[in-house]
């Protein structure tokens, strides 16, 4: 049995505590680093134990006496395990201020491929996992009358496109779920932020045929952390994708049907 986080609360020294789901690589890993840099204590969750432990060890090496990153191995498709694990983590951290759902995956599908197994995996990872984690966060934060929920979605959720039906659906579902949480929880003092990155230089990018405006995960994480601090609601990362999103959302169907992106 490994040692618990064992964070001691002190009245005049408040600690910010976060859970990042999907922390072993990409935006999740960069955001974990960014949050630790901003003084958070972070429970970092991912399926891949090796990467996760390496990330936390590297972060804690800066201050071995006061570690701030704590690894928890978890497969987000195992949503039955979430309630107990959520309680364990929050007990270990001694509280919770922020939950970031950053787990996401995309499988390449060809233009005439209809593969239920592939689509289901994406929807399970990108959407159902988020529902399982953020429902827990919603219950807790509404009882605490404060807290912050962040979902790392994608600009890909703004429309259904020919190249990625399953991925688009998972992200559109996540957007709608986050919006519903926001509407439920705003009156309870809880903030819900939807992050819609454009192209970020992560493993997911290999499925994108044409890319432009690519930013590093570190740049994305910095912008996301700033959006969290400002308690924003829907944020495109970087911001110029907001204009793209606006245009894409308003392309009439008779034109969209004829496009092949």
């Amino acid at each position, binding site marked *: 049995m490994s*040692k618990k986080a064992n964070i*001691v*609360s*002190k*009245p005049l020294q408040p600690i910010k505590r976060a859970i990042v789901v999907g922390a072993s690589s990409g935006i999740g890993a960069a955001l974990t680093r960014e949050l630790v840099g901003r003084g958070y204590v972070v429970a970092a969750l991912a399926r891949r134990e090796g990467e996760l432990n390496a990330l936390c*060890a590297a972060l804690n090496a800066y201050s071995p006496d006061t570690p701030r990153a*704590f*690894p928890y*191995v978890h497969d987000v498709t195992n949503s039955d395990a979430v309630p107990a694990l959520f309680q364990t983590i929050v007990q270990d951290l001694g*509280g919770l201020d922020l939950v970031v759902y950053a787990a996401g995956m995309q499988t390449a599908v060809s233009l005439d491929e209809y593969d239920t197994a592939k689509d289901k995996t994406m929807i399970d990872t990108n959407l159902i996992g988020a529902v399982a984690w953020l429902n827990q966060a919603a219950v807790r934060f509404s009882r605490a009358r404060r807290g912050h929920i962040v979902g790392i979605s994608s600009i890909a959720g703004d429309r259904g496109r020919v190249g990625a039906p399953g991925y688009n659906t998972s992200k559109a579902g996540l957007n709608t779920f986050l919006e519903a949480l926001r509407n439920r929880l705003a009156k309870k003092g809880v903030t819900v932020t939807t992050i819609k990155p454009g192209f970020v230089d992560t493993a997911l990018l290999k499925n994108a045929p044409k890319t432009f405006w690519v930013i590093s995960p570190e740049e994305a994480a910095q912008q996301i952390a700033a959006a969290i601090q400002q308690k924003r609601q829907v944020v495109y990362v970087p911001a110029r994708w907001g204009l793209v999103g606006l245009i894409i959302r308003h392309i009439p169907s008779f034109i969209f049907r004829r496009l092949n992106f």
Partner: protein
Amino acid sequence: MIEKSAKPSTNSRKTAVPSPTLPDEHLEIVSGWGESTRGMSYVYRPSTLEALANVFETARRTGRTVAMRGGGNSYGDAFMNDENIVLDLRRMNRVLDWDPGNGRIRVEPGMSIHELWQYVIEDGWWPPVVTGTSKTTIGGCAGMNVHGKNSWRKGTIGDHILEFDLMLPSGEIIPCSRTENSDIFHAAIGGMGMLGCFTSLTLKMTRIYSGYLQVHTQAQPDLAGMFDYFHGYVDESDYIVGWMDAFAGGAALGRGDVHRAYYLPEGADPNPSQSLRLENQHVPENLFGIVPKSIMWLGMRPFMNNVGTKLINTAKYYAGQVTGGKVYPQTHAAFHFLLDYVPHWKKAYGPGGLIQYQPFVPKDKAPAAFAEILRVSQAFGQPNYLTVFKRHRPDDFLLSHALDGFSMAMDFRITPDNRHQILKLTRALDEIVLAANGRFYFAKDSTVRPEVARAYLGEEAITQFRALKARCDPDNILQSNLWRRVFGAA
């Protein structure tokens, strides 16, 4: 800040063995009375011994720790236990036995001082020690070993507890008194709920012959005047409390008002059966008969800054000078429960809340130490808003704040911007207090560090307490934020 003992897990925690969960409906915000800190805990409110034992069982089964909460009036983190269980004992508030002939009462731990004095006063008795609010519970008062405005004369509340029963986390109930399990008796009183849960406590009440106290007020121009007054009157009066204007500097450093009060001797009140009646003791609900007191804090809110409070303190001092020397009768309830006069007054401090810093200093070193404390606070630009001055005597409990000397309770307003500064200030003040062989009081505390506790309690007392805790609570189930902060989880 993170405790140094915290180490990163070398291996990630597996999800294969999920720990049993606690129901969300028990999850509540738990905040120290000063509201400068808050957390979430699973709160249980048992009403029977069986339900109480079940809470310990639940804790064991789910790998949680348990802290005790009475009235929830400790300023800091004494009853907080973030993400673990808080046992709120207020439903266990029954009188188990009362003898109006000799004033012995046996009560459950959740009975409040309010319920207690109301229960005994019409028989001509009053609790020997009461806190400045009547919302504290007897169990909480015993756990924190509280004192009142008669502390130098009657000591701490522990001095008036004849015996108690203590439920250990195992569910076993052990009787404790000065003759039976006396080591546990002297450690559980003032033991912050870390040895077990009081299930009944027996106290001796004080005989009174009138529903009134005779109260004298006197303004004092400086700190020396304050000390002189206390020295002059401690032998004859039953209660003395001083209020200080912490904004006044220079020659006026430590100026303020003193109230002293006397019980009326038998026969002095021509109609005690009338003055002892409950309706005679009730504190009025409205100010000037018009303004509901429940909203008075709103009117105080604009003054809760350095300028506003300086104005009020100055006005209060000169008002005290004008009315000084006044003698008047006041009911017991009105004299004692000053904090209850303005409900929610703490809200006037704003969302950041307040902390209290109350050092206790031996009588010969107190004048210099308190002058230094006031000066240093002013130099930090953080004068405290409410300063209360009291005289004390030592007691024989293991973890005690009591000593033969004086205490000065200081309220500091907390904001997100001044937190760091207040922390630095209290660390500077700790040095002054420790150099004067002073002590601290966990009911009020938010800032004591492990090394400060070791310095004033002594290694030996702490080792003894830990040994008793290991005996009473071998699984270390009883913990609180305060316990972990000052004594560590191990």
